[in-house]
C-alpha cells in the first residue's frame, strides 16, 4: 500500500526523458508560431505608438498632451490580463469580435506603447537643449532636428530600458494562453493536463522562455556596443 502510493505519484515526480523529448517540439513550435511573432509584431506596433505618444506628450498642444497622458495612465494603471480580457471577452458584447491572435497583438501593442512612450520621452528630454539649437542654427526645421539630431542620440539612451520592456513582453505573451492563443505556455498547459506532469512541463516552458530572453539580451548588448562608438570611453 505504502509502496504503491509512491509508485502512483512518482509519475509526476520523476523526470520523464521521453516526455521531455516529445513535449519539446510542440512547445518550440508554439514559440515559433505564436510567442515570437506575437512579441515582434506587438513590439514593432508598440514602438510606433510609443514614439507618437511621447511626441504628443512633448508637444505644445494641450489636447494632444492630455490624450497621451490619459492613455498612458489608463494602460499603466490596469492589469494587462484585464486589458486582454476586455478586448477578447468584453468587446463581443458590443458586437466587436476579434480573433485570439489579433486580440493579443492589440493588447500587447497598447501596453508596450504606454510603457515605452515614457522611456522615449525621457530619452528625448535627456538630449541637451544645445543639440536642438545647433540643428536650428544650421536652418533645420523642428522635424529635421528631431529625426537627424535628437532621435539618434535619444535611441542610444533608450536601448537598455527598451530592451527590458522587450524581454518583459516576451514573458507577458504567456498571458495570451488565457485567451486561447496556442503559444508556448498554452502548449505546456495542454500537455501537462494530459500527462499529469505539471512540474516537468512548466519547468521546460520556463527554460525555453529563459533561453529566448537570454538570446535577446545578447542582441541588446551588440546593439548597445554599436551605438556606443561615438561616446567617450
Amino acid at each position, binding site marked *: 500500500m505504502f509502496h504503491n502510493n509512491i509508485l502512483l505519484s512518482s509519475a509526476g515526480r520523476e523526470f520523464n526523458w521521453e516526455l521531455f523529448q516529445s513535449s519539446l517540439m510542440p512547445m518550440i513550435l508554439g514559440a515559433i508560431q505564436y510567442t515570437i511573432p506575437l512579441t515582434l509584431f506587438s513590439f514593432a506596433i508598440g514602438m510606433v505608438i510609443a514614439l507618437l505618444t511621447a511626441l504628443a506628450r512633448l508637444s505644445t498642444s494641450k489636447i494632444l498632451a492630455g490624450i497621451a497622458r490619459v492613455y498612458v495612465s489608463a494602460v499603466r494603471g490596469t492589469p494587462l490580463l484585464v486589458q486582454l480580457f476586455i478586448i477578447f471577452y468584453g468587446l463581443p458584447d458590443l458586437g466587436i469580435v476579434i480573433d485570439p491572435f489579433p486580440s493579443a497583438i492589440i493588447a500587447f501593442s497598447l501596453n508596450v506603447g504606454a510603457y515605452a512612450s515614457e522611456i522615449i520621452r525621457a530619452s528625448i528630454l535627456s538630449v541637451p537643449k544645445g543639440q536642438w539649437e*545647433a540643428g536650428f*542654427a*544650421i536652418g533645420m526645421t523642428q522635424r529635421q532636428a528631431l529625426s537627424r539630431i535628437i532621435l539618434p542620440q535619444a535611441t542610444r539612451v533608450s536601448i537598455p530600458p527598451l530592451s527590458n520592456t522587450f524581454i518583459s513582453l516576451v514573458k507577458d505573451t504567456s498571458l495570451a494562453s488565457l485567451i486561447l492563443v496556442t503559444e508556448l505556455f498554452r502548449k505546456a498547459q495542454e500537455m501537462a493536463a494530459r500527462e499529469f506532469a505539471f512540474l516537468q512541463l512548466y519547468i521546460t516552458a520556463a527554460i525555453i522562455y529563459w533561453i529566448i530572453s537570454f538570446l535577446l539580451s545578447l542582441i541588446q548588448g551588440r546593439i548597445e556596443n554599436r551605438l556606443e562608438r561615438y561616446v567617450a570611453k
Partner: protein
Amino acid sequence: MLISVKDLHKSFGELEVLKGMDIEIEKGNVIAIIGPSGSGKTTLLRCLNALEMPNRGSFHFHDGFDVSFNKNPSKNDILRLRRKSGMVFQSYNLFPHKTALENVMEGPVIVQKKEKGQVRELAESLLQKVGLGEKMHLYPHQLSGGQQQRVGIARALAIEPELMLFDEPTSALDPELVGEVLRVIKELANEGWTMAIVTHELKFAEEVADHVLFIDGGHIVEQGPPSEILKNPKEARTMQFLDRMLNPS
C-alpha cells in the same frame, strides 16, 4: 547695410533682458559685442537668429527680406531668418553621433538639399581651412576643445551664411587652446565675412572688430570703432567695465 534691427525687446518672464535695441551691421564688418555678464549680450546674439524669440522688434535685410516680431512671425520667416546666419556656440554643440566631416555636411545636405559629392568637397575644404584636414573622420569626443570649436566654425560656414554669429567662442576653452580658434576667426574677418562676436577677449576685439557695442542693463550704452570704445570711452559705465576687465584684481 546687411541687416538693420529696430526696437529689439526680449523678456524672460518678468525679467526684461533687452530693453529696446537698434543695431545695424554693415556688410563685411565685424561687430564685437562686449559688456558685463548678465548684460544681455548673448541674448542679443541669440535673438539675431531667433534661437530666442524676440518679444518685439523688426529685422530688415538688404535683399528686402523683412521679419517683424511685433506679431507672431510665420515658421517660414523664422527658417529664412535662421538660414541667413551661421552660429558658433560657446560649448560647440557639435553633433556627437556624427564625425567632424558629417557635422559640416549636415546643413548643406539636409537643409539646403545640395548634392552630397559636391558638399563633401566643400566640407573637406572648410575643414582644411580651419586646420583639421587630418581629423575630419574623427568624432567630436576624439577632438580637443579647440578642435571641436573649429569644426563648429566650419559647420556654420558650410551653409554659406550672410552673417556669422559667435557666442563667446573661446570662453569654454583652456587658455592654451584659445589662440587657434581666434586665429581662424581673424582669418575669416580678413576674408570679408560679416560677423557679430560676443566676446570677453578685449585685445582680440580691438584687433578684428570694425565696430564695438558696449551693452549693459539691456541697453546699448555706447558704440563705435574699437579705438574709441576700447581706448577712449565716453560713458562712465564703459570706463568702469574696461577698468575691471583690464585690472581684475
